């Protein structure tokens, strides 16, 4: 098979490249085969999670139909289950986490890449990595025991002055001297604050990584024009890092949507669609699953798996978009300077 054409080379059709037999040794064929099988196995396994959850969702969706998405209650015994309340709760907690976490992550990333003394930089980067490695149950504990008593004052302040905005409204007299602290605890707001601690290191690491790639040439050009440091950051670093900022934020959102244990420790579960994030009680997908699986019968489990599938679909979609943003900002925008 090595000789495809008997004619001398000059007469061969040059448009037709000749086939080269790579002639791999057996060891290499084995190696490539084994590694390929591993890759495919991982691909299959990870896809299996999605497919498995998806298949489990079918009977539930057939049984409850659209009401699964509109029903707020989760009462498998009386045969009413729906994810409307946990959906809203999940989004609320995630958005609070982002509202707090995004600016802090951005500022921290800017501080580390632009303002910190150079010799501290690598230690600060490790510190952010460490922050990401702290188990989430510890953040949950801290949020519950330490942050909550302080944060309810913030809740009260928001309720007092911004209570006319529906999401900040609380059904209690926040202004009275003996205000009801318990109406402000265990809320989506507090849970979001704790979750923000977990998403900050994630978003910060992505943003800092992209900021660090901002070309030196452009930075120096800005300085040489007489720019202040902030002027340089605005003209060079932030435009360059836009993809990283968006991507990091979306990764953080994906993480915030799925966070379980910290939310479970803080919230008191309710099953209403609540728009007022400051008042007591909320629920999320993951907290619902973790809280209800123990008592679950077969039908209930199927319903929980369906909820899990929806969470899965949401996070995978967000993470994929985030990955596209981050990768694009790392390759395309990088001018070779």
């Amino acid at each position, binding site marked *: 098979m090595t000789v495809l054409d008997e004619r001398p080379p000059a007469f061969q059709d040059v448009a037709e490249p000749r086939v080269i037999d790579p002639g791999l040794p057996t060891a290499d064929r084995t190696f490539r085969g084994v590694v390929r099988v591993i890759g495919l196995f991982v691909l299959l396994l990870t896809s299996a*999670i999605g497919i498995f959850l998806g298949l489990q969702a079918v009977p539930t969706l057939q049984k409850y139909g659209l009401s699964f998405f509109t029903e707020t209650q989760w009462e498998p015994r009386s045969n009413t289950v729906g994810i409307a309340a946990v959906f809203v709760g999940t989004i609320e907690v995630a958005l609070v986490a982002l509202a707090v976490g995004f600016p802090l992550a951005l500022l921290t990333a800017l501080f580390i890449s632009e303002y910190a003394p150079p010799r501290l930089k690598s230690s600060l980067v490790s510190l952010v990595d460490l*922050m990401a*490695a702290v*188990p989430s149950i510890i953040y949950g504990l801290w949020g519950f025991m330490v942050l909550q008593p302080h944060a309810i004052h913030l809740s009260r302040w928001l309720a007092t002055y911004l209570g006319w905005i529906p999401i900040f409204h609380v059904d209690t007299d926040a202004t009275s001297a003996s205000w009801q602290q318990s109406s402000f605890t265990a809320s989506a707001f507090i849970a979001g604050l704790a979750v923000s601690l977990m998403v900050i290191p994630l978003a910060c690491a992505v943003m800092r990584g992209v900021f660090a790639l901002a070309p030196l040439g452009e930075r120096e050009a800005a300085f040489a024009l007489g720019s202040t*440091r902030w002027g340089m950051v605005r003209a060079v670093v932030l435009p360059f890092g836009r993809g990283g900022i968006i991507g990091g934020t979306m*990764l953080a959102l994906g993480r915030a949507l*799925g966070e379980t244990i910290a939310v479970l420790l803080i919230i008191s579960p309710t099953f209403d669609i609540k728009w007022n994030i400051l008042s007591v009680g909320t629920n999320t997908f993951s907290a619902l699953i*973790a809280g209800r699986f123990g008592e679950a019968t077969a039908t209930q489990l199927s319903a929980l798996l369906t909820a899990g599938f929806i969470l*899965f679909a949401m996070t995978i979609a967000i*993470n994929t978009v985030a990955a596209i943003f981050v990768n694009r900002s790392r390759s395309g925008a990088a001018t070779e300077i």
Partner: protein
Amino acid sequence: MTDVMDTPTSGAAMPTLRVEYAAGERASGAAEIVPQLRSELGLDDQDAPLETPRARPLHQRSLDDNASLIGSAVGSLALVWLLYERVLPLSGTIGFVVCWFVAFLVIYSAVTSMVYPRPMVVDRIAQAVVTSGAAIVGFALAWTIIWIFLQGLPALIHLNFYTEDMAGVGLNDPLTKGGIKHAIVGTAIQVGIATAIALPLGVGTAVYMTEVGGRLSRTVRTVVEAMTALPDILAGLFVYALLIITLGWQRSGVAAALALAVTMMPIIARSAEVVLRVVPGGLREASLALGASQWQTVRRVVLPTAKAGLATSLILGIARIAGETAPLLIVSGASSFFNANPANEPMNSLPLFIYDAVRRPDGLTIQARGYGAATLLLIMVLVLFVVTRFLARDKGPSR
């Protein structure tokens, strides 16, 4: 001075120049003018061979810089102190700090704008805001770590905390009785099994993505990347529904380890891929050009080159799953007694023990034990982390 310094109007400018040699001994045509120059410069009082000059300070913060910063901080503190809780209808420490910060920014910008133009004001405010943002995050991290250490200390100082289990120990029994040996061993076994599964698969996948490639590998990469952020509870739910409900397994250490392995695998695959990708292509080509097979190249050149980076990604993966609670909540039943057999009987683990303990409203010492376990978990993570830094410093890619 301008009249002497400046050069002629005509285009054929005659340059003015002054030459000074580093050391006087260099002989050249211009050397004779040096003494003259030196006297003009008033340098003659210093003697001929110049001392090594002393570096002058750069990046200097002027007195004004520091004074306006500290002054604004103190002034705003005093102002807010005066007004807070009296005039402003606010309460709580967080509110106080927020008010202080806002007042500080206002005063600082006002002070700066008295002397400096707008870009400088903006620059200083930006610096203050950026630094404060980072400080808040650092403060929260430090507070968390210190707090958990203080909470855990009462339990940690007892030796029996590490050598006994909780079998037959009541919720209110003193800390001198019972311990979390079962949880420590459980975590060690589960993490060990998970690592044994996830490491070869993860690294193998990374090798597939970087060394073999092809269209399918891009799909693998996309899926793996998306899976790194899979909500941890879903891994537990998957294993629970597949193994325990469908296949009728027991809740056990193996089930827990499998759930952890599912979480860990994409993390290792992805970070290992990043590490392998930065191994210079020239090294691979050099090895292939010597007649080595691809397998030999990977085994003898690529993997050893990336060793430190791979170790880092392994340890970060371990640190990540050691504290994973949500999947364990589902697949591994809690127990209070020692069980070193992962195949049957529920097996406790540190995260699960913590979760269980701190949610007991009754019982003072059980909560203290929970905090003790949390501290221990954090210490483990910290140790792993320091080891990682140590490895990373060795060599290998830092990012």
